């Protein structure tokens, strides 16, 4: 037992090490970026944000421009890659955080004392945008109000992501894909995107997704929940037909729908209204389906 204890201590103690203090920790760099977005018909915007705080919002004052800044501790991050290229009539903006790998330090310590990484990017309003967003660890606030969203793909790892859309998308969004891994995702005003197909996957985390508002078109929503939980709010101005695949280990709460065969459907079905078809499956997690009033 003594030998085992010594071995255990030898294994664990290095994990408790705080790591070396660096002079580079004492100052930060703030990089400012700017691109003029003109002469294109579509913008593909892709971001891979490893960790830190991120804000994405519309560039309301300069609708033809992309602006932003990245503020970071140089010991832990290189300057982010913010590239803009144009091929034909399509523009591509690609943003990547560049974390520095310190092999000699235990990187789990990052969550607490040492690093700072905050970015804010403003997207142009003048062109349709296909968004592909990937966040690993941190806090992300996304405001897509006023932007022309052609498709939206969000993948959140850990941390918290908030998506807010306050005004109607001027174009139809072809598809929304949301994947909440181990973190929290909150989406408000998603009905404004006018999406026809929505795919939501929740792993260990939680997702609160609000589609309340006016929906004027048919919509297919597919939801997969593993060990996590989802609260999905749908509007009451549509017909709803929900098929839920669950078992005795999962928790399913459905409000204001009636069970008809193996489906939950709207009480007063009206063929003049658009229909939302839901296909939801849940493992050990929970689904909470609500209808807004």
């Amino acid at each position, binding site marked *: 037992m003594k030998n085992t204890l010594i071995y255990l201590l030898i294994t664990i103690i290095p994990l408790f090490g705080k790591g070396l203090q660096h002079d580079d920790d004492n100052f*930060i760099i703030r990089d400012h970026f700017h691109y003029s977005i003109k002469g294109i018909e579509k913008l593909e915007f892709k971001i891979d944000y490893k960790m830190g705080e991120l804000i994405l919002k519309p560039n309301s004052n300069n609708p033809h421009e992309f602006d932003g800044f990245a503020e970071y501790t140089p010991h832990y991050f290189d300057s982010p890659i913010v590239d803009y290229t144009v091929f034909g009539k399509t523009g591509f903006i690609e943003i990547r955080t560049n974390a520095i790998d310190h092999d000699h330090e235990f990187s789990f310590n990052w969550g607490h004392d040492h690093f700072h990484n905050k970015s804010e990017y403003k997207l142009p309003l003048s062109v349709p945008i296909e968004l592909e967003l990937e966040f690993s660890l941190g806090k992300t606030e996304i405001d897509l109000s006023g932007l022309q969203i052609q498709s939206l793909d969000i993948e959140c790892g850990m941390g918290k992501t908030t998506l807010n859309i306050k005004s109607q998308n001027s174009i139809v969004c072809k598809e929304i894909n949301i994947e909440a891994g181990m973190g929290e995702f909150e989406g408000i005003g998603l009905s404004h995107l006018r999406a026809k197909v929505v795919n939501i996957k929740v792993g260990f985390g939680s997702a609160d997704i609000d589609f309340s508002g006016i929906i004027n078109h048919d919509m297919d929503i597919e939801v997969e929940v593993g060990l996590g939980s989802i609260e999905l709010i749908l509007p009451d101005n549509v017909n709803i037909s929900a098929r839920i695949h669950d078992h005795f280990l999962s928790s399913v709460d459905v409000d204001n729908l009636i069970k008809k065969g193996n489906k939950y459907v709207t009480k007063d079905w009206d063929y003049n209204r658009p229909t939302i078809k839901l296909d939801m499956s849940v493992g050990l997690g929970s689904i909470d389906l609500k209808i807004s009033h």
Partner: protein
Amino acid sequence: MKYVLVLVLNMVLLWSQTDISQNIITDVTKFFNDYTIEAGEINSDNIRVIGGDLYVYGTVDGKITVVGGDVTLGPTSVVNGTIVAIGGSVQKDENAVIHGKIIETNMKEGLVYREMEPAESINGGYEFRIKERSMRASESWIHPETDFFIYNRNEGLLFTPLNSQWDGDGKSSFRLSFSIGYRFGPHEPAGRLTLEKSFFSNKNLVFFGSAFKESRTDDFYRLSETENTVAGLLGRQDFYDRWNEEGWSAGIGLDLYRVKLKLLMASVKQDSIAVTSNLWSLFEKERPLRSNPYTEPQETIGYWQGTVAFQTRNYSPIATGMALFVEGEAYQKSDDGSNIYTMNSEELRKRVFGFLKLNWEMSYGLVFRSQFIAGTSDGKLHEFRKFGVGGLGSVSAFPFKYQTGDQMVQANGEIVFTDEFTDAWFFLKLFVDGGYAWNDDTFSFTKQNILDFGISSAGVGIGSGDKDDLNWSVNIAKPLNGRDYLETTIRLDYNF
């Protein structure tokens, strides 16, 4: 282009500013010449270098603007003022000290300019962390808070006034917890000190180490410690067999929302705690106290213990849901130098215990509750570690641990007619219990064994409470072996 113009205007404004608060500051403009601030030199002037490079080895207190040249900050340089580099780059030695600000601009799209400044100058929090942590992360499940008062036949009154946890108000990944109390029965202190190091924002992964002197029981599943304390105070009863453990443990915990896993190793000195003969109670002052099962005195043992626990979301005793708990332990005497014990030695004893609770809200206000318990070992358990069936939290209307053995099975079922169903202040319940404990080195048993040797009982109950906080209930139970005996029990919790 508009953006560049604005930028240039900003630069011109920056350039034209002159600090008039100190008369000694002067403006200097250098054309096509390099400019050097030597080590030890303190520069408080406003300097413009056009077409040349700037080298800094001393201290910059003023503002230096470099157009079309590079800036080099040497190892002895200190920047208290501002350096603006337009169209050039800034090279900084790692020992250079920046208290002021460095702005590096490029007249092109993309990275248009860069600022460098002390970390303290950032508005808002310097450190990044998730501010809204879950409750799970703010409370320790490795070192749960001990009840303020615990009352039982071994410890008498265990008073634990000091229960503290420190983790920098949730900002630190370390947590130090301690509970220190005093046993008024044997007149000795008891407590636990735990250090945890967690990883991830919700503290999902925890390494921990504890030093402790505490009582331990295998009967925790029968009833809560609080209800056992009330039974002691009111009726001079104790439904736990306890022993003392003094030593240390270390391990790892994994918290995956509804699933928790814990693996620990421990080295402890085990001993019995003598029964306190003068246990005070409000009623039943003369009730004889149950003696301890035999415990080998002053035995130092080492053990490995693994625990898995799972609950469905918002688990509640009277709502549809499931809870699972499994704990496995391998223990043996510690190596004392003369006898070397290994994990393969004859001394090693293995014990596995688990329960499954399944609740089903069959219809409005009507809940079917069930519990299945199994215990198994390799047939070598010490007397005080054997499984027992019978008594409160096990099979009603039978004495406490009526049967003991190296193996056990137990099943409990009840239908609760909640107050929503009765539409009155009370609920009703019908319950049935069954169990069987036997000595063997394998878990195998037949239906005939259960019929021949198992014990069972059935009963009814009435009580009042709400969904998650039962106030009280009265059970009347009868054994199903033909004995003409009725047992009345007052419970302050659900039967299981």
